[in-house]
């Protein structure tokens, strides 16, 4: 099986089809808190006049989700895992203009 997302298997189902879980390392998580960029905020404010998608914010949240995922992967690699199963995403707005992105899952070793 070739892995498409780097060297580690990421999935949000609770197993890896066709492979067996041989070791369980427990929960791994990654989080980032991002504040809005002033320039992007102004652009988003302008865009908000006409509604629709706010591309600046979409990019911002995508970047932070990527970063949170990378932190989770780093943690899993440190434990010696080669797959993370049962991944969940959660986002919460913790203050005006700042959002927390939290990603968590179970690090396992599959064979």
């Amino acid at each position, binding site marked *: 099986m070739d892995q498409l997302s780097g060297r580690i298997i990421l999935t*949000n189902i609770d197993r890896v089809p066709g492979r067996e879980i041989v070791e369980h390392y427990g929960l791994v998580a990654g989080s980032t808190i991002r504040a809005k960029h002033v320039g992007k905020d102004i652009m988003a404010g302008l865009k908000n006049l006409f*509604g629709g998608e706010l591309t600046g914010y979409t990019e911002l949240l995508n970047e932070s989700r990527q970063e949170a995922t990378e932190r989770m992967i780093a943690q899993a690699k440190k434990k010696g895992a080669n797959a993370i199963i049962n991944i969940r*995403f959660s986002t919460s707005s913790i203050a005006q203009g700042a959002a927390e992105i939290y990603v968590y899952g179970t690090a396992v070793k599959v064979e």
Partner: protein
Amino acid sequence: MENILELVITIVLVVVFTFVPLGLYYLVGKHFENKHFASIKQRESLYLQMSLVPSDLVDPQQKVEAMGLVEGTVVIGSDPFKRYIANLVNLIGGRVSVFETLLDRARREAVLRMKEKAAKMHADEIVNFRMETMSICSGNDAKPMGIVEVLAYGTAVRYAKNK
């Protein structure tokens, strides 16, 4: 006579400073919405072959060749016309259809972005599909709906072609 003149001036001012901008917002918003819906429909037809399943069942008959997490996000905001209508509906209650179309757009776009990522991996289906909607900028009285993020994610699965 003076009272009537005052009334006429007030009506003219209300029309010029409230309804004309609202009409403009409505037309511009509608234009972008129609354009977006047309593009959504066109792209949705491209990915009809890829099934989207909310359960975590992977076809046991076939061999899984590759799998990976895919996600799609959209951040969407409302326009002043929609907010004005929503404020009016708030008085009597009922369906706020102006926001329904907005969220419909956001959801379908998020699913499409996820499917586009899965298509890059030549995936056959997406299992354990989840959708999350989150308000990242809570609304207030002037803006009943702030900014909403829609996140769609799931596991893309590619089956081996030679069984």
